[in-house]
């Protein structure tokens, strides 16, 4: 089981309290599709992903970005057993969506960059460490049903 120090819990909870999830989610997913263009293959039904402007303005991308952040919020509320909280999501992504699990890390990295951009100097190295640990646990839980 993952162990969280009080400082880590505080850092992660603190980040969520500062974020507008309806802004971060869409921004992060759009970045993933722009910075790692091969990820667009999973979103063929989303319509126009032809260039960065189209991706940033695409309402289906935005909607899915919000879904992803709501999923992250579920992890926050179940920090002591993220593995269990993510069982069905993991099955969905592996059995139905067939997402290459490497891509979870790429999206996590984009979420981190958006959070860093929003928090500025408040995103200290310590807070970064706690946040990246949290996302690593989430990514690991998402990957679990692939094995």
């Amino acid at each position, binding site marked *: 089981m993952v162990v969280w120090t009080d400082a880590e819990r505080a850092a992660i909870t603190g980040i969520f309290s500062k974020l507008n999830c309806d802004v971060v989610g869409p921004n992060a997913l759009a970045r993933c599709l*722009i910075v790692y263009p091969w990820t667009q293959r999973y979103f063929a039904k989303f319509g126009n992903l032809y260039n*960065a402007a189209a991706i940033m303005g695409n309402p289906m991308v935005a909607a899915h970005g919000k879904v992803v952040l709501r999923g992250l919020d579920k992890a926050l509320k179940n920090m002591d057993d993220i593995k269990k909280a993510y069982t069905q999501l993991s099955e969905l992504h592996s059995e139905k969506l067939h997402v290459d699990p*490497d891509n979870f890390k790429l999206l996590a*990295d984009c979420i981190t960059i958006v959070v860093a*951009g929003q928090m*500025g100097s408040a995103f200290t190295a310590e807070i*970064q460490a706690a946040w990246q640990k949290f996302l690593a646990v989430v990514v690991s839980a998402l990957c679990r049903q692939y094995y």
Partner: protein
Amino acid sequence: MAEKRRGSVADHHVTKLLGSSDTRRHSEQHSGGTMVGWTEAERRAIRYVWEKIEVDVVGPQAVASVLIVYPWTQRYFGAFGNLSSVSAILNNSKVAEHGKTVLNSLGLAVKDLDNIKSTYAKLSEFHSEEVNVDPDNFRLLADCITIVIATKLGSAFSPDVQAVWQKFLDVVVSALSREYH
């Protein structure tokens, strides 16, 4: 998993450059010395980021971040003295100096985007032969540099700019890793 990711990003850039979907063929060409292509827009974006950052601030913060977020990297800095706590690392003058050194070398690459491989040739030998750094760690430092830049630039670090900046750092990391192959 890190290796696969590095491969897919490098393959992607080469594929985009040469306009074909056969990544295996392009990997061979890439290792044979295909040059990275930069569009005018990409050059502008890299200079845009570079002009906005203070090397003496970003460098130290990024190296400190690597040592804090990925603590195993501290093994390379045994000669740097006290790294026993977050505040020790943040206040360590050798860490700060090394951060400035790293960012200054990045500045050389920014000024000569078409010759990054040769700019980094000696540094690559040094990191592999003398310092024996696991090249996966270059990517970790690159990621921390990107994150520190995101904290400084805020919304000015748009998705487009992020894409170009990460491509630039991928090329630098690849150049640094070259003497290992």
